[in-house]
């Protein structure tokens, strides 16, 4: 311990003096500087602090435009007036909130809720209180500006869907990002008030459509009004999408579906390019873009018609007789029957201890495969099914791509199902019964498919063993017109079958529309040879109540050299022949009317 103690108790005081002087000089220097700032320049600084405040403001990037294949606008942006409150600038909170609630149609509680959500951000961060206010409301706020410090109105780009309810399922919608999402790392590039693609193409191509917001450094006065802009970083608009869709065909289909429930998809046979895609019932995507009200949202999600379900990619239905094409192709390919093989139809088919009925009560008599397809004889296909067994039907479906997702560029596509013995064993732990094969062979029983899968079937026949991934977007283009990405056709199925298989099936499908005994004869066209297959699928509605059969029609045209493939479903619509085939007729008519130049050129070549 002694070591610590200094022998000499008088401590050197020079250094302490030095330190004290340094301290005093430091305080004097600081005081002089403060005197200069607070006393000499104080008034000037006070004025600056009261009148000139500089804010960093986001400049929202306009979202990319969506065009159809001919360059017609399907979704764009329009200017909208949005009302913000900057917490920092409010003088009297209650006066502002009550004043606003009186002037425009908004609840006091709504305003407070929104401000609470934004309370983790700096008080100089403007909080969006109401989007897309009317001109009338803008005028009221401007007139009362003096009583509403901190309230500002910004003109910002807003998503606009000129066709509203039409095309909604394909385009999707955008809406404001939620509070929970903002906190999630996956959305770290977003801030409160930002819009995000929720559904359809808006969601699938969000990263391309969104663009990059800019920034503006503005001077604002004591009322929060902009005085001048100091610096601007321009926003980069989102990339535009050019679709494969033909707006005219799309609108024709939309109109044909008015008051119906179901969906339709039309693709280019040789590429998979989607020409039209409709699902009904629909919703108005514009409502989401403007900030959907709680009531509207409740109405949409509680609607028993499920307007937010894209029936083309997310609706599972028994395919009914359209599925006979699958059985027909497989049975011919396997050589189990030939063109001349006949089965007798007396209106029913005994199997086990059950009678499986044909849709035609009196029976078709002796039926070959051609008549079997043309007249859609159930008994003929019961026989075919038994010859094949469920696993061979399943195998054929796999090749075509039925029961699995097609890869269309829309989010949320579902699988569907074509049963097999292995599937049943796995799902139910039970063996497969042959009686079930009888149902499956005509597209009933456990089979369920989506309309987009059935258009793949139609294209498969039309292309004789080939089909392509359905693609809605053709290319992505920047705002300067530079092509960012093009989508080339992607082959989904490529199967080699005996040549006669497709000839026989195609002749059958041509007969369905063009032979007087064909089930879709009523939908034949004068100039164009359309081939197709009807389907009327039994469905059991809720609580066992039969709401009517699902009406199907799949088609391709022209029969000789198919360019388009179509799949139509009308949910609980009745007969495929009378309900769905006419829609395919409208599509075909419109397509060839649209493409008359192409048609004429072809005729010329043929000469």
């Amino acid at each position: 311990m002694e070591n610590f103690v200094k022998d000499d108790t008088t401590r050197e005081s020079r250094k302490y003096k030095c330190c004290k002087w340094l301290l005093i000089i430091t305080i004097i220097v600081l005081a002089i500087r403060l005197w200069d700032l607070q006393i000499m320049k104080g008034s000037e600084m006070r004025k600056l602090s009261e009148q000139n405040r500089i804010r960093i403001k986001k400049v929202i990037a306009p979202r990319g435009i969506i065009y159809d294949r001919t360059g017609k606008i399907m979704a764009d942006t329009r200017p909208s007036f949005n009302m913000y409150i900057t917490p920092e600038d409010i003088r009297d909170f209650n006066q502002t909130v009550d004043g606003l609630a009186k002037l425009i149609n908004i609840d006091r509680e709504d305003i407070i809720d929104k401000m609470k959500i934004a309370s983790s951000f700096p008080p100089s961060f403007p909080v969006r209180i109401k989007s897309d206010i009317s001109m009338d409301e803008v005028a009221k706020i401007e007139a009362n500006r003096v009583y509403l410090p901190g309230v500002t109105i910004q003109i910002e780009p807003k998503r606009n869907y000129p066709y509203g309810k039409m095309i909604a399922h394909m385009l999707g919608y955008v809406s404001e990002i939620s509070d929970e999402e903002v906190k999630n790392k996956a959305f770290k590039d977003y801030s409160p008030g930002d819009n995000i693609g929720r559904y359809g193409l808006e969601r699938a191509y969000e990263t391309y459509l969104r663009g990059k917001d800019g920034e503006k450094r503005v001077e604002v006065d004591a009322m929060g009004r902009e005085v001048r802009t100091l610096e601007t970083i321009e926003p980069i608009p989102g990339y535009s999408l050019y679709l494969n869709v033909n707006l005219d065909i799309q609108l024709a289909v939309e109109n044909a579906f008015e008051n119906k429930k179901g969906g339709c998809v039309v693709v280019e046979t040789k590429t998979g390019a989607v020409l039209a895609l409709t699902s009904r019932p629909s919703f108005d995507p514009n409502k989401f873009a403007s900030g959907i009200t709680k009531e509207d949202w409740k109405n949409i999600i509680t609607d028993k018609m499920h307007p937010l379900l894209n029936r083309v990619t997310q609706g599972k239905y028994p395919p009914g007789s359209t599925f006979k094409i699958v059985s027909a192709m497989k049975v011919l390919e396997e050589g189990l029957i030939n063109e001349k093989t006949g089965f007798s139809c007396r209106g029913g088919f005994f199997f086990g201890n059950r009678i499986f009925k044909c849709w035609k009560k009196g029976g078709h008599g002796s039926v070959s495969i051609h008549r079997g397809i043309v007249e859609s004889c159930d008994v003929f296909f019961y026989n075919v099914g038994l010859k094949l067994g469920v696993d061979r039907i399943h195998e054929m479906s796999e090749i075509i791509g039925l029961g699995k997702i097609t890869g269309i560029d829309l989010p949320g596509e579902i699988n569907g199902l074509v049963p097999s013995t292995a599937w049943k064993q796995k799902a139910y732990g039970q063996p497969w019964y042959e009686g079930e094969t009888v149902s499956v062979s005509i597209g009933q029983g456990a089979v369920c498919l989506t309309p987009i899968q059935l258009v793949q079937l139609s294209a498969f026949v039309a292309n004789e063993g080939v089909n392509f991934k359905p693609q809605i977007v053709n290319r992505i283009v920047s705002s300067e017109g530079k092509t960012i990405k093009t989508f080339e056709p992607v082959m989904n199925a490529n199967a080699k079958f005996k040549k006669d298989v497709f000839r026989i099936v195609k002749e059958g499908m041509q007969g369905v529309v063009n032979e007087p005994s064909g089930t879709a004869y009523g939908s034949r066209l004068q100039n164009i040879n359309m081939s197709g297959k009807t389907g009327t699928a039994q469905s059991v509605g809720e609580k066992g109540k039969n709401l009517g059969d699902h009406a199907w029609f799949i088609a391709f045209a022209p029969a000789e050299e198919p360019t388009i493939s179509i799949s139509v479903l009308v949910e609980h619509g009745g007969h495929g022949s009378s309900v769905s085939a006419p829609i395919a007729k409208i599509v075909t008519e419109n397509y060839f009317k649209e493409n008359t130049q192409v048609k004429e050129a072809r005729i010329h070549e043929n000469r």
Partner: protein
Amino acid sequence: MKIDKRKLYHLDWYLILNGLVLFAIGIFNMFSATTSFYSGSYGFIMKQLVAFSIGLILIFIIIQYDYRLIANNSKWLYLLAIALILLVLIIGMIAGGAKRWINVFGISIQPSEFMKPILVLFLANMLYEKKRENQKLSLRDISMPMLATLVPFVLIVKQPDLGTGIIIVLTSLAILWFVGLKKSTYALLISVGAVIPFIAWHYLMKPYQKMRVLSFINIDADPSGFGYHAKQAIIAVGSGKFFGKGYMAGTQHKLQFIPEHHTDFIFTVFGEEWGFFGSIILFLLFLSFILRCLKVAQNAHDELGSIIAFGIGTIIYLQFTINVMMAIHLAPVVGIPLPFISYGGSSILSVLVSTGLVLNVSMRRYMF
């Protein structure tokens, strides 16, 4: 353990009172800095009070043990602090960026803050004999203290936390000066000191750090960045005029463009609301606190205690001066908290631990 009544009697109540007043000012000021019209700032205040309570417990523990005993074991504290700083760097690297904190049971700790008092203890323990014998330090004598300073300096600057790094280096230079240097050592340190800015500028400093220096020299060099913040800070302080805008009535400081206004730029809040009058009182409180540390150093029982009290006083002085200078544009912006006033648990704890050490030296001044 029971505390000796004589020691309690010798406790420096003046220093304690002075520290309490500063801390109370800090709490009231922070309440204003973090409050907006619809959301309270109880979270900040609560955390600060919790840190303060823990700090009081630490002071109580520290004054129970003779500072000589603590200094004797300072190398273990030093190694522990180095290990924690290294840990920060490792965890920081995983996060992919700069990190100054580590998470211990949900509480984030900034080890570099604690390095400051620990280094003072470590250096004091190394040098007190030289001072007692009135030996002037040769080049060889300062090599170990310099090394002991450079290791944490490099690690802390890497985080990056230039502010704390600067405080560490300046504090240990002050301690070396306090112990006494040979003329040749002075000459060397001064010549090295003259070269360092060039090396730092060309090889060590990151572009954003250079930008801070440039915008200090010319406030318009980076009008949308640091210069801009500096300008807004000046406007905040300047607009306080003589008596200030009044408590809770500051507008400028609440704006987004004064960054870290509850931590490193806390003085702008005080300056705006209390004006020249309040600021001078605050300065005098700091002056009195630092002078008290010096007095403890002068009256300490031995040179070890003297160096410790001097070193702690130096830290408070440097942090106070640099922090205020950068708020009023007399120094480039580096992150340095204002002792007692800035928000931050580690900062408060470090200041209280330091105060505890000074109290320890002070209460044992009559012990033989």
